[in-house]
């Protein structure tokens, strides 16, 4: 299917992605992107849980646990770095179809996200299916989500 939709254009480092929009933490240290089926891509990205991160000091004071929502943040930043902007805007998480958090990530743990992304639909949305793995090989999460680039001048209903 040929669509008049933007193509993926990886052109950002994780550090640039973090500096371009509000985010609780720099949630990605590295990203690798490869071509996927039907014009989509696959990505691998990773980070290490830093107990000195300001948000993690509050989750929790007695024990650092990387929150499930931060796995979603890691995925968002990885997707943004991997697909690039469209009309000057980064993609946003639009719909979380399902997420399962299976094992904890503690201080010093590494998280690797492997995801298939796209292809892009006519409405500038694309599906993301991800599995997340801890350094010792244990699967920590599975996520299915829809991201999209917002249309210019805001489709936010304001």
């Amino acid at each position: 299917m040929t669509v008049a939709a933007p193509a993926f254009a990886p052109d950002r480092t994780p550090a640039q992605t973090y500096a371009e929009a509000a985010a609780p933490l720099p949630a990605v240290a590295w990203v690798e992107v490869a071509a996927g089926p039907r014009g989509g891509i696959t990505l691998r990205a990773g980070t290490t849980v830093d107990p000195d991160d300001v948000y993690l000091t509050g989750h929790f004071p007695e024990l650092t646990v990387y929150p499930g929502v931060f796995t979603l943040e890691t995925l968002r930043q990885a997707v943004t770095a991997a697909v690039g902007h469209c009309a000057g805007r980064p993609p946003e998480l639009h719909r979380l179809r399902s997420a399962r958090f299976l094992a904890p990530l503690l201080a010093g743990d590494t998280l690797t996200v492997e995801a298939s992304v796209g292809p892009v639909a006519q409405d500038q949305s694309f599906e993301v299916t991800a599995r997340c793995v801890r350094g010792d090989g244990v699967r920590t999460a599975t996520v299915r989500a829809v991201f999209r680039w917002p249309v210019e001048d805001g489709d936010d209903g304001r």
Partner: protein
Amino acid sequence: MRLEHAALRALLPHRYPMLLLDRVEDVTPGESLTGVKAVSGCEPCYRGIAEGQPADRYAYPASLLIESFGQGAAVLWLLSRRAGTAGLPMFTAARDVALLRPVHPGDVIRHRVRLEQVVDGAAFASGSSWVGERRVAEFDSMMAVVRAVDAIVEPRDEREEPR
């Protein structure tokens, strides 16, 4: 019943800046809750934005919005649990969460949370988040459990990759 911030700190183990619920305006334990979260440009999620970014980049992170709703659900559940059941509430699953509109500094979010069921120590909640009269997010199902710290920090050498 209304809960001020001190009561939320007593119920939830989350602390600054991860305690993402300011007040509970109304709660019927075990049934429903309306929780308030005021978004401020002073929050650390805005500290890393490079100068000169356009206004849309200041949208409140979806990850924190979901966490804030989840903390409302946790309060609703924890209020109905018997005393003495210690542990950390853990977000374990979500299904069909829709982020509908961006939230910006200065906005006050109201989470309307319903506790759907509690099965085998796992709580299921649903609801929506609002800024004024606009719905900003919908939550079809959010699931959480309470785990003892010892269970979270269990030995890992016996684990195997569940592939």
